[in-house]
């Protein structure tokens, strides 16, 4: 089996991640932050150590700025629904995932509006200009993906963030597809809300996500409940990060995510990204040699792209191509990738695209096998 669907979730996970989850389920079985016995304290310590690792990994001010969520989508919803008020306006890009567009569409009922800024691949100046032009007097947030989950296009988030701050506007970054592939430094970029998927480039288990923010105190909660603190009060605690973490936490997932971060610290993000870019560029070159393959972007320069590649075969729906690949035990993702806006951008809404995303564990022969199968697919 060849797994090239790492943009959906990474597989396989490092053995250290498997071991950490196994250890957590067997030895950290108590509810963290609830009781005073040793195992509960030990469980809480594991969560804290993971917060600390994530905080260091992204250069956040401290572990208390790291909020665990179920996934990146939930982190984004926490911000949108905890921050935005009727009358507010949000600027997003024209290639967003539904994790950004759907919550905003739902918020239109409350009188919150949004505009899409056009993205110009490989032209950061033009993209920045489009974001600037989309700002109006009601703009309360700029929210955009760091990298498109369909086309791999990188947005110049540091520059967009600096520009947003010039106008006194906070910035949310959906880093689901970039974390673990591009180093992100919060101390330098000053991103206000960084939303992460723990189970993709960070190599944690599914069911893990993170919101990193220094604005937790002023952000309202959308979920309230038990936190193990201030139990006498009916009012939600205002202490971060616990105020956003009502209910029992996914300790097993968090322990796995902690091991995922350690794996990245050991191997280094830059080295993994280099490996993945080499594979994607090799794939790109080989695909350009196949007559009936349609590519939509220029050769993915790491400066402007994350290591993933989407293509089509002339006359075929992407799902049909994926089905053939599946028969050869090559696992990719076809269709719209929950990002219709990104497909609209390249006029692929009618048939989607076949997305290939390697990981640290992908080998060159995996890509060769994919290429050999693609070569044999005849256009219909």
């Amino acid at each position, binding site marked *: 089996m060849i797994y090239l669907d790492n943009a959906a979730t990474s597989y396989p996970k490092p053995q250290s991640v498997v071991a950490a989850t196994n250890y957590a389920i067997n030895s950290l079985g108590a509810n*963290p*932050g609830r*009781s*005073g016995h040793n195992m509960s*304290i030990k469980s*809480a*310590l594991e969560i*804290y150590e993971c*917060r*600390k690792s994530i905080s260091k990994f992204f250069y956040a001010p*401290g*572990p*208390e700025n790291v909020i665990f969520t179920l996934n990146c989508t939930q982190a984004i919803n926490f911000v949108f629904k905890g921050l935005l008020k009727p009358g507010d306006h949000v600027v997003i890009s024209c290639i967003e995932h539904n994790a950004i567009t759907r919550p905003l569409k739902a918020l239109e009922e409350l009188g919150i509006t949004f505009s899409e800024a056009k993205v110009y691949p490989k032209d950061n100046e033009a993209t920045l200009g489009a974001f600037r032009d989309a700002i109006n007097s009601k703009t309360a947030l700029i929210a955009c993906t760091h990298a498109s989950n369909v086309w791999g296009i990188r947005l110049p988030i540091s520059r967009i963030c600096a520009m947003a701050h010039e106008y006194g506007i906070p910035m949310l970054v959906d880093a689901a597809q970039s974390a673990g592939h591009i180093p992100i430094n919060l101390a330098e970029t000053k991103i206000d809300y960084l939303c992460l998927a723990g189970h993709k480039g960070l190599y944690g288990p599914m069911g893990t996500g993170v919101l990193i923010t220094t604005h937790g105190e002023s952000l309202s909660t959308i979920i309230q409940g038990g*936190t*193990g*603190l*201030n*139990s*006498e*009060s009916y009012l939600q*605690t205002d*202490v971060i*990060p*616990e105020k956003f973490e009502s209910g029992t936490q996914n300790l097993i997932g968090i322990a796995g995510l902690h091991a995922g971060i350690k794996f990245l610290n050991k191997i280094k993000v830059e080295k993994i990204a280099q490996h993945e870019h080499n594979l994607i560029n090799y794939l790109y070159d080989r695909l350009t040699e196949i007559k009936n393959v349609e590519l939509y972007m220029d050769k993915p320069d790491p400066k402007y792209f994350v290591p993933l590649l989407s293509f089509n075969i002339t006359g075929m729906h992407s799902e049909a191509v994926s089905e053939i690949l599946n028969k050869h035990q090559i696992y990719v993702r076809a269709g719209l990738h929950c990002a219709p806006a990104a497909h609209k951008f390249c006029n692929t809404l009618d048939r989607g695209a076949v997305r290939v995303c390697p990981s640290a564990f992908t080998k060159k022969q995996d890509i060769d096998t994919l290429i050999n199968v693609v070569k044999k697919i005849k256009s219909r």
Partner: protein
Amino acid sequence: MEKRKEVFILSSITYVMKAKDLLKSKGIKCETIRVPNSEVLSGCGYGILIHEKVDIAEKILTNANIKILEKKIMEENL
């Protein structure tokens, strides 16, 4: 050598862990403990038991912007 023991009640388990990290890095012995009922917490929560150098520990935490909600002298049966 000062041997007074005190419990610092902090706002959350995360801050208790952070405080513990910090104090241990400065060589001060301390432990996480559950605080069953505290007025400042409106119920239960967590604190950090400081075994030694209580005043120095307080200074370190204050300098690190870790808010101590309440200090309790450790009693034998606590």
